[in-house]
């Protein structure tokens, strides 16, 4: 893969850097990593992290240590659609365990795995701030809330249709 932002994305990077004081461009690291992850296939491969380090004039190690700290950065390839199901207390009270079991069975994968067609990854996560709308999961940019088995079916169908 060619690790290079488009001119438009480079402009975005520069705009992000300008939000922080002169010389404090390292502050742009989290937002730029988000941008890079979206742009370069949903995860952060080493060349991508090195590229980001170059853009911000910091050492690659400064990028690695940050990328490995935060749960939203994927250090391994993931499926096209990632189901991140919350399993913390309030969601558990409302049946998140059943939803996780149902997705496992439906996609025939374990937590942490990706389907053979590369379409779906299942992850369990901790509280996403949607406790009143449980059970729930994050899928890409948005939340899917008040999950039921029927809703899970519909979401899977929706993804399959979009992918085709």
């Amino acid at each position, binding site marked *: 893969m060619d690790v290079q932002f488009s001119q438009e994305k480079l402009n975005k990077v520069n705009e992000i850097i300008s*939000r922080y*004081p002169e010389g*404090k461009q*390292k*502050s*742009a*690291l*989290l*937002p730029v*990593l*988000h941008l890079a992850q979206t742009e370069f296939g949903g995860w952060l491969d080493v060349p991508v992290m090195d590229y980001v380090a170059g853009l*911000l004039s*910091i050492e690659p190690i*400064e990028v690695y*240590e*940050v990328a490995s*700290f*935060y*749960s*939203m*950065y994927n250090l391994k390839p993931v499926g096209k659609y990632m189901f991140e199901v919350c*399993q*913390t*207390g*309030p969601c*558990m*009270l*409302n049946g998140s365990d059943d939803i996780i079991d149902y997705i496992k069975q439906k996609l025939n994968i374990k937590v942490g795995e990706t389907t053979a067609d590369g379409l779906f990854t299942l992850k369990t*996560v*901790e*509280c*996403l*701030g*949607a*406790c*009143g*709308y*449980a059970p729930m999961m*994050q899928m890409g*940019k*948005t939340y899917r809330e008040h999950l039921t088995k029927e809703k899970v079916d519909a979401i899977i169908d929706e993804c399959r249709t979009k992918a085709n």
Partner: protein
Amino acid sequence: MSIKLLLDKAHVPGIRGFEVYRREGGYRSVEKALKMQPADIVEEVKKSGLRGRGGAGFPTGMKWSFIAKPEGVPRHLVCNADESEPGTFKDRYLMEFIPHLLIEGMIVSSFALGSNTSYIYIRGEYDWVSDILEEAIAEARKNGFLGKNIQGSGFDCEMYVHRGAGAYICGEETALIESLEGKRGNPRIKPPFPAIQGVWARPTVVNNVETLAAVVPILNMGGEEYAKIGVGKSTGTKLISACGNINKPGIYEIDMTISVEEFIFSDEYCGGIPNGKRLKACIPGGSSVPILPANLLLTTAKGEKRLMNYESLSDGGFATGTMMGSGGFIVLDEDQCVVKHTYTLARFYRHESCGQCSPCREGTGWMEKILKSIEEGKGKMSDIDLLWDIQRRIEGNTICPLGDAAAWPVAAAIRHFRDEFEWHVNNPELSQKENYGLRHYADELHVPVTA
């Protein structure tokens, strides 16, 4: 009718946009503030009695007055929108539905503190909320409420959203500052406090979303009027995010005079427990605060009705009380297992520990492991004492309060639900098939309870 100061307009169609928000009286507090002296704004906030809504409840006006003002060094206001404490989802609601209220509160607060560049640190998962905020900021700028020379006052203020990337610890203010600097979210040792040396070693104030939004009504009505709402040191209104086993989960703005019982059972609020079940337990202020059994939740050990405010919720200390915390209100019905719930929280804290201090890093791992084994019917009686011992060794022995936050839920669960833990140990097979149930947890208390 309850008083609403923050969410009274949240349902007006189109309130997310500048035009409607402005027409409904938005940004008046900025116009008022810009004609005042910054110190007088701090004074109003002091008079209001406003306490930080992020969890600790520290008086906001006092916090503001601590900010250092060294010559020639910029100061910064940072809004804490990391909202990751299980049970808490109020800030999201406010930002999602009435984003301009936060922006307005932040402009006033930035002026009061002398911050020309202010940041909103939002948890990374709230991706779409971050878009909503950026749009609101752009609108405010277009209408002359942000940028250079705001409303001709000579005050300049820029505002940016900074997205985190999944780490509860970044809600802790010094970890948040590290994260804003592009580093791992490892809390700093205090002192120096952020008010002296915060982001980029500059004086910094970190405040919760709801705290900064509350500055708007305070400016509009005056600190003294605001302080008349509520009771004692619990002034103004508080957002409660209610979840778990209730009929109407969601966000409620309360004035802090109503009872816990009314909050859970009245139709104006949570609307009672679904399926005619009974109340077993509740964690009223986010996962970190002590869980209470139904009886101690509804009445204090002194036999008084417990109210939804800072003082009443903490009445009895940790022996028989709990805390207001972040207002994340988690209700457990009679069929829920306290051991299992506590286990999920322990797993959460193990996952979120930054790993800097060994009592927290190792202790949270041990607590999770032991709770899991008790929950799965593989525990020993001595494990319960071991758990107690571990949580005690964490509390107070760490760099940041996450250690305490991990220890308290475990301590409270053992303190009040020890027989449920013992039942798991004594009934390894039965406990895998059914739950302990309500038992005596809702019984009237006749004798004063001791720790």
